[in-house]
């Protein structure tokens, strides 16, 4: 007998970052269709799809209503860290599990969340390790005015300092704001060695367009000299940005252009469902992974009980378009291999460097400080204190 299992899917497919939400929803629904059409599974996933429209305060009530009404014990969703932090108390109250598929700023490891996107030691640390020696350590930091921008740029600032540099510019725009001229003027005046971009959605598109105009007027801002580096720029936004993105860099655990048979098969399935022009992206894959890993773990556990599912999902590797993927049992974060790519003409990513192997998640950057140069890791607070002689 095929048992129906409810699943809440919650992405903002309208509002200020709708393009990312639609991309993630597509990924989740493709995985759902694959699960439901496969005879590997003794259940069929019945989705309830919610659209909080990018309104932070709508996430928790929508999630709560959906979990109550459908009895779902799993939710796949959330793009921004704001939305994730809004949903966590509801997830905890229901003893449910949230499958979150986006890159985020770290300093969190919730027992009720499976983190499938990259955390800082898997995105900004390798990204700047590549860029600092090549472009210089006087960076310009621009971001959307919320926790992702603040925290990612704060880590960026520390990495700059570790390389003897500093932030030449640091500016934040409200979510959805496209008025980037003051920011561009400041960059033109201060001439940072590169730009670390943690803007999201339309703010990011407007910034790329204005930066391209700056580069056209002053070749010192050409991408090869002063690139824009992003940890969240993916295929789904390249058509919006157009040629203004060419030559700039992004890091992600997944790019549509990744080589290998696993990804080739994945791309074929995307083309079959959405047409030959459609590309995969880290946002698409993150949501796809959420549904896919949930189904695989449920199949093995024989139940949708979140604790049983979590035990399975953190105990072995799963075949995915990224190759065999494991979830670290200490942190519930995916062990991911970061890739660095350049936007090539035609709007695709050209991979220029990949980590030698998947990198275990370190959401609190405990290992990073341990590996940093001695001068960069003050341990002054630590002392050898004996409690009882």
């Amino acid at each position, binding site marked *: 007998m095929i048992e129906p299992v409810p699943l809440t899917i919650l992405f903002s497919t309208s509002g200020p970052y709708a393009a990312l939400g639609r991309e993630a929803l597509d990924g989740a629904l493709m995985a759902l269709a694959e699960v439901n059409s496969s005879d590997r599974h003794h259940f069929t996933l019945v989705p309830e799809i919610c659209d909080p429209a990018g309104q932070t305060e709508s996430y928790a009530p929508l999630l709560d209503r959906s979990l109550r009404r459908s009895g779902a014990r799993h939710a796949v969703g959330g793009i921004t860290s704001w939305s994730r932090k809004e949903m966590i108390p509801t997830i*905890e109250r229901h003893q449910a599990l949230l499958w979150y598929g986006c890159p985020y700023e770290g*300093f*969190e*490891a*919730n*027992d*009720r969340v499976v983190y499938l996107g990259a955390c800082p030691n898997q995105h900004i640390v390798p990204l700047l390790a590549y860029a600092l020696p090549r472009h210089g350590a006087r960076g310009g930091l621009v971001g959307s005015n919320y926790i992702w921008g603040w925290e990612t740029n*704060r*880590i960026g*600032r*520390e990495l700059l*300092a570790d390389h003897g540099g*500093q932030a030449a510019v640091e500016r934040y725009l409200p979510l959805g704001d496209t008025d980037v001229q003051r920011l561009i003027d400041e960059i033109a005046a201060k001439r940072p060695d590169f730009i670390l971009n943690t803007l999201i959605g339309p703010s990011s598109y407007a910034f790329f367009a204005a930066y391209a105009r700056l580069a056209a007027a002053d070749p010192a801002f050409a991408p090869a000299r002063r690139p824009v580096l992003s940890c969240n720029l993916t295929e789904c936004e390249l058509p919006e940005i157009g040629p203004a993105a060419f030559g700039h860099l992004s890091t992600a655990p997944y790019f549509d252009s990744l080589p290998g048979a696993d990804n080739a098969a994945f791309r074929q399935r995307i083309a079959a469902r959405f047409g030959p022009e459609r590309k995969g992206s880290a946002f698409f894959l993150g949501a796809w992974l959420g549904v896919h890993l949930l189904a695989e773990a449920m199949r093995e556990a024989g139940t949708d009980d979140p604790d049983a599912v979590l035990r399975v999902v953190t105990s072995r590797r799963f075949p995915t378009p990224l190759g065999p993927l494991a979830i670290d049992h*200490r*942190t519930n974060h995916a062990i991911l291999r970061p890739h660095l790519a350049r936007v090539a003409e035609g709007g695709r990513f050209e991979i220029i460097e990949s980590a030698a192997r998947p990198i275990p998640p370190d*959401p*609190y*950057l*405990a*290992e990073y*400080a*341990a590996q940093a140069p001695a001068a*960069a*890791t*003050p*341990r002054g*607070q*630590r*002392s*050898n*204190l*004996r*409690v*009882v*002689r």
Partner: protein
Amino acid sequence: MTRPFRTPNFRGWRALVLHKPGPVTEALLRQFGRLGMQGQVAWPDIPAGSAAEVLFFDADLGHDGQFPWPPGGAPMPLIALIGSEAPGRVEWALTHCPQAHLLKPLGSAGVYSALVIASHAHAAQSRLEQAVASLRSRLSRRPAVLQAVLELMRREGIETSEAAYARLRRLAMASQRSIEDTADDLLRPDGRRRA
């Protein structure tokens, strides 16, 4: 130049948890693992030879006899684990001067910020205590400074106490010692510096 802000890091820290083993200690140990820390649970007594950079203690069932120091005398940051908010228990916990607290039951978060706040407060408190001790010592040595001023007026024929004090200050600055140490030297029968 201002030192750039560093992300607080607790890798290698040893945390001692003075709490009955159970969900609370399990949640703590899980969070320690993610922060690169080592945790040791002890109840009701702290075993001999224990060492730690931070101590978490149970505010609900704890008592003075469990600590190897008098209330308020802990040599490391303390974090109180509070379940019951009964005023008597909170008051007892306060006598040990914890720099931060966590409410039970513990969720997946809280330990990191409690560590940041407690270690910051402990360091600030230690600096303050050192400053107060130094001021206290200088205060207790005021009679010697007064005597040295009088001695300088007598020995060098200085007419006013202000001028004699200024002379004493210059002597101290020239020898890069405190006014109190310089006064002690002046008052020694042979007038020589203390070794």
